């Protein structure tokens, strides 16, 4: 078995090979990508926890190293599951990409390599290094998407930089204060740290990187445009894999650095800091849900849903409760798979129709039934409807919230769940149901190559919804490692103080329900199909489809509630404008049209320095 370091290097240099291969033959390069990610997945499945490798000297006295932990293993498995599936999808998808395809594949591997390093980094700075590699690689892929992606990429990079640099600042502060950076030693030092303020600063600053990456309020604004604009297949990996780096860092800052032991509990064993993070998660849930509802672009819609789901994950992790934390981790897995299903089916739709606007489509179920099924299962899981695995994780989180008496939070999480019904239904109805447009009559279903990963994900989701044991086992080992009371489960039965959950029973119940519903559907007469253009009014034919597309103003009644809402997106835009005006001011200050200005400054500097200093 090769070392992790070598595997990472294989990815980093593999990106060059991938570039050349793809340049020569698109499919070949993509197959290479798939094989590499698939091998990594296999490698990670078999990797033994506790392995440690020296990496490089960061400073003469500080050594960077890699260590395999259960937490890292869990996250990396989830990641490479997503990466491998998306890579498989890309094998066919990339044939339709006219430019930048070679760079796409190269950066894809670069991102994978970076992520691998992040999950096995043993210290703050090594993590940062790989983190930035992954960020850079993803930044490079984003602008290969549509027009809006150019700006989105920069916004993404800036927000990432904000998070990363807060993290880096904290990391160096720690290095300077304790002389160590490995997670284990740092957490020991933090436990003995006398200054409460310092602990707050460190944890919040480190968490900042995770907050940005997983799109938690208030640093979520980059997400809509970045997901919406980036290349369609990549969005799946972006949401399914890359955002999980954020969750990973959040898990580290909350559990590896044991906040429970560092801060006195505020309520029911949950420390203040965690409470604050839970509230950030709450807001993200609300915000993501309600913003998703009003999107017309299906990718941007699910992008907002990612904000909400990032919120769920954070809420789960921040409880630091046996079941809550497990729920958070489980949701990491679920959301990863859901993202792949949803965004890959979107990728197919966009590939075939050339648009991502909901109101420009309709009735695609008749042309792309398999894609529809993938999306359907994806959103069922997303909405947390049993018997999918999406329900289990949400249920674990609800359970914990209720148990800890956080009823407001629980209510919010519930509202978010209900809201998700609303938004996932909009693409469902707008894109797949309803009238098929004339121009879409000749559309074809996705190719076999594309369908394989999509349908495998469908199967996986249902399977794990029924039999979540493999995941739960992994989660238990993580919790054990982190000193959190491990989840009690018996393969398909999850035990909680509020009762237990038997996945098989639930599955059977729902399966029966579905069958009955389907029979009913077949029995009852169907509505007559009408051509959309056959509408007329006052003797005039109407050609303005959009006005009559029923996805237009779909949730107008809800949207009216918050039409003129204050938003952080606007706030950041304002900050941008503010900086530009400062920029103008500074430019004007320094850069003068006449030499007088320069001499003015020389004189002023002399006068000020002289009179101030001496």
């Amino acid at each position, binding site marked *: 078995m090769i070392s992790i370091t070598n595997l990472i290097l294989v990815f980093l240099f593999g990106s060059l090979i991938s570039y050349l291969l793809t340049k020569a033959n698109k499919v070949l390069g993509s197959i290479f990508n798939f094989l590499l990610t698939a091998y990594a997945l296999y490698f990670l499945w078999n990797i033994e926890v506790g392995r440690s490798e020296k990496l490089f000297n960061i400073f003469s006295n500080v050594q960077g190293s890699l260590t395999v932990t259960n937490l890292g293993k869990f996250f990396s498995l989830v990641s490479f599951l997503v990466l491998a599936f998306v890579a498989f999808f890309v094998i066919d998808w990339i044939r339709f990409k006219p430019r930048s395809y070679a760079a796409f594949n190269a950066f894809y591997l670069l991102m994978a390599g970076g992520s691998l390093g992040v999950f096995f980094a043993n210290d703050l700075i090594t993590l940062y290094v790989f983190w930035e590699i992954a960020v850079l690689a993803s930044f490079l892929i984003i602008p290969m998407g549509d027009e809006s992606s150019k700006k989105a990429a920069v916004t993404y990079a800036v927000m990432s930089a904000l998070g990363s640099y807060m993290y880096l600042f904290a990391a160096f502060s720690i290095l300077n204060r304790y002389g160590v950076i490995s997670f284990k030693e740092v957490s020991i030092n933090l436990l003995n740290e006398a200054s409460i303020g310092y602990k707050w600063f460190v944890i919040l600053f480190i968490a900042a990187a995770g907050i940005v990456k997983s799109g938690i309020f208030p640093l979520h604004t980059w997400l809509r445009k970045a997901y919406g604009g980036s290349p369609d297949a990549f969005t799946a990996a972006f949401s399914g894999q890359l955002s999980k780096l954020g969750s990973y860092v959040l898990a580290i800052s909350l559990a590896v650095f044991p906040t429970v032991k560092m801060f006195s509990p505020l309520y029911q064993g949950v420390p203040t800091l965690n409470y604050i993070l839970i509230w950030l998660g709450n807001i993200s849930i609300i915000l993501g849900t309600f913003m998703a509802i009003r999107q017309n672009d299906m990718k941007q819609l699910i992008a907002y849903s990612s904000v909400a789901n990032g919120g769920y994950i954070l809420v789960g992790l921040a409880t630091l409760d046996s079941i809550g934390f497990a729920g958070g981790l489980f949701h990491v897995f679920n959301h990863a798979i859901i993202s792949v299903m949803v965004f890959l089916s979107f990728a197919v739709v966009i590939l075939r129709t050339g648009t991502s606007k909901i109101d420009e489509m309709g009735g695609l179920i008749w042309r792309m039934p398999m894609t529809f099924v993938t999306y359907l299962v994806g959103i069922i899981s997303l909405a947390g409807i049993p018997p999918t695995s999406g329900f289990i994780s949400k249920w674990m989180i609800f359970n914990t919230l209720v148990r800890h008496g956080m009823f407001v939070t629980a209510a919010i999480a519930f509202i978010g769940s209900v809201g998700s019904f609303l938004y996932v239904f909009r693409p469902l109805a707008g894109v797949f149901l309803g009238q098929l447009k004339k121009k879409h009559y000749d559309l074809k279903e996705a190719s076999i190559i594309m369908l394989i990963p999509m349908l495998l994900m469908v199967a996986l989701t249902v399977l794990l919804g029924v039999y979540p044991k493999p995941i739960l086992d992994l989660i238990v080992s993580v919790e054990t490692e982190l000193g959190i009371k491990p989840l009690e489960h018996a393969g398909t039965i999850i035990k909680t103080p509020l009762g237990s959950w038997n996945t098989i029973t639930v599955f059977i119940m729902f399966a029966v329900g579905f069958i009955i519903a389907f029979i009913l559907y077949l029995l009852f007469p169907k509505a007559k199909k009408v051509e959309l253009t056959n509408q007329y009014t006052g003797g005039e034919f109407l050609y303005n489809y959009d006005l009559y597309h029923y996805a237009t103003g779909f949730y107008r009644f809800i949207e009216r509630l918050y039409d003129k809402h204050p938003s952080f997106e606007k706030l950041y835009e304002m900050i941008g404008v503010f900086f530009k005006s400062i920029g103008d001011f500074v430019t004007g200050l320094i850069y003068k*049209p*006449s*030499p*007088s200005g320069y*001499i*003015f400054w020389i*004189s002023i500097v002399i006068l000020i320095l002289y009179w101030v200093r001496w």
Partner: protein
Amino acid sequence: MVYYISFILIGIGIYGILTQKNLFKFLVSLTIIDTAINIFIISLGYIEGKDVPIYSKYTPVANFVDPLPQALVLTAIVIGVGTLALGASLLVRVYEKYETLEVEEIAVKEARK
């Protein structure tokens, strides 16, 4: 007194640069400042009752003012001349390009581009 004169000349030069709007006058002000600095340096080497630092039949043995500032000023003057020539040639070109040496008119023409 000489110190004050050179300081005032520096002040005049600075004032000139701060208030002028004609590019040529900047060069003039610059020259004033240069000259003032040179006067100042020379005066720093002046010793009352002493002679120009040249052994000659008029002053066969040393009874000289400080020769070093003079030597330095000689260098500074030549450097100043060089700068002046460069500035002048640049002005010729500026005038050729904008047909004016007024700062504001140039700014207008630049903005129009």
